[in-house]
């Protein structure tokens, strides 16, 4: 997995609540058997018209946000379907950090498996960063995972919380499966006990 340590980048503002994973990546792009190449279809139905022309008003089509690495959004980001194609599309576009007041659970954990840092901040702080993001390429937002801080283009610093284990994995780009396999004795022990207690399982 890609590490995430520090990031200094342009942030795209998407001030909508309840952005669902159907919006992030519509179902017609779930028919792939690969993880890569979905960035071009990120927010597809908001980004392109029926003739596949770009809709100029959509934030990621604006010249100043084409290289955005951060997304600032409204509450309950990533709700709906569990499709990991959503974080795959976000990462493939080049966005590795999302800032929002809250996330849907499955999307939130999917991000950490794909080198994306989803940051939760109170609404008033998200509002400040949303305004900052609206300045376009003049505003670079800095994210430091080790220090757990975000610095706005004006130098205002916000601290954020993140689970220590998830942080450790993201900072070091660790593979969950490898880590779990180190605990295979615990798993085998559990299986022996469980099959004695609940043999019907």
């Amino acid at each position: 997995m890609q590490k995430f340590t520090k990031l200094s980048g342009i942030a795209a503002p998407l001030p909508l609540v309840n952005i669902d994973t159907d919006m992030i990546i519509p179902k017609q792009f779930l028919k792939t058997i690969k993880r890569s190449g979905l960035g071009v279809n990120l927010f597809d139905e908001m980004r392109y018209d029926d003739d596949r022309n770009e809709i100029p008003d959509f934030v990621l089509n604006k010249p100043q946000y084409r290289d955005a690495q951060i997304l600032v959004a409204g509450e309950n980001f990533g709700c709906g379907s569990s499709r990991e194609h959503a974080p795959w599309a976000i990462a493939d576009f080049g966005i590795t950090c999302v800032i929002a007041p809250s996330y849907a659970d499955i999307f939130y954990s999917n991000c950490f498996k794909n080198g994306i840092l989803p940051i939760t901040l109170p609404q008033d702080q998200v509002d400040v960063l949303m305004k900052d993001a609206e300045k376009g390429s003049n505003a670079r937002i800095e994210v430091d995972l080790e220090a757990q801080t975000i610095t706005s283009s004006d130098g205002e610093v916000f601290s954020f919380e993140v689970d220590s284990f998830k942080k450790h994995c993201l900072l070091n780009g660790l593979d969950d499966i490898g880590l779990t396999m180190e605990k295979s004795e615990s798993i085998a022990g559990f299986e022996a006990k469980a099959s004695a207690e609940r043999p019907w399982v």
Partner: protein
Amino acid sequence: MSPKTLYDKIWDAHVAHEAEDGTCLLYIDRHLVHEVTSPQAFEGLRMAGRGVHAPDKTIAVPDHNVPTTPGRNDPKNMTEDSAIQVAALDTNAKEFGIHYYPVSDVRQGIVHIVGPEQGWTLPGMTVVCGDSHTATHGAFGALAHGIGTSEVEHVLATQTLIQKKSKNMKVEITGKLRPGVTAKDITLSVIGATGTAGGNGHVIEYCGEAIRDLSMEGRMTVCNMAIEGGARAGIIAPDEKTFEYCKGRPHAPKGAQWEAAVAWWKTLFTDEGAHFDKVVTLKGEDIAPVVTWGTSPEDVLPITASVPAADSFTGGKVGAAQRSLDYMALTPGTKLTDISIDTVFIGSCTNGRIEDLRAAAAVLKGKKKKDGLRAMVVPGSGLVRAQAEEEGLAQIFIDAGFEWRLAGCSMCLAMNPDQLAPGERCAATSNRNFEGRQGRGGRTHLMSPAMAAAAAITGKLTDVREMM
């Protein structure tokens, strides 16, 4: 010992390892797999030279992509990319030796309908699937939730998930439901009351007399949409109805093991005095038949209401409501019963079970759908379909002018050819009314099977109570 919730008990019974910071390895009893969210996971195993840790606990069935029209056993009758995904599942199931119900098998269907039907889902189990509607299985008193593809790979490789415990939330529905009100109305009304983020970070236990009174099918409908309320899972304590449903299913325990299982299952309830972090209570008699008007499942109103104005909301929801109204092409103040529809879709993991088809058929019996309206019934599994044919329900649908389809997810998410055209308005028994969910530009109103059947007859959103 301090009193525990049902969720606490199942959680505690499945912790294989706990780190100092509370990060746990949760052991998974049943892993359900479908064709859309698994190919990358199997490919990951292959690349790393890993196998499936517990193939006997892993069950696969193609459902999202498959056409629901005759001739679908021939891959030529699928779009090329769908055929590739289904073929990949065929290959992966064979190569890794997991249980499999191919498209040609009468037991094939929507994974969340097949699991309980075959007795794979049992009380007290942990059940996961790369699909958010895995919450359905919580109806059995199982801890069941959706996972991403990386987690699918993790469960395939280790039979565990890295998890931290969620909070406990209680949703109690007291008293009795009024006539014409169903499990779907309960679950939509709860989301209407709590919002789509109301359950974030929580596992919901549904309880109360109105929940107890529901059949297993109804309980599955309620738990199915726990995810739409943001919850990690929904769960209902098992009881005699649960045991009765499970008994004799192909993969349910038999003989002495059955007795031992039931004895343990009877301990699976929330202890008196157990702590809930959040409690929501609705009165059963206050719940009306409801429909959604917008593009979020929280946009719920009784069928007797009118389309709301955007400025009747607060905060970020004002903009979202305006966006919904624009997308749905609705004018505030319009009576919901004045909204005309083009299509009716009855099916999905929310409402594709036999009881749902019975409820819809009861409304449709001896009647016809409105001329020009497109109407289809997609049974949740091949066995539901067969049972509905045996009970004469299929004929009622056909006589009413409905298409009688083969099993699959179909127009719930429109990954197969069953899609709405831009601007087409649908009365749907599925679970999501998101923009583009049933087809780009398609407009979805969620409701119960009986309400969808009523809408098919009149061609408008309709209060089913007026037809009873």
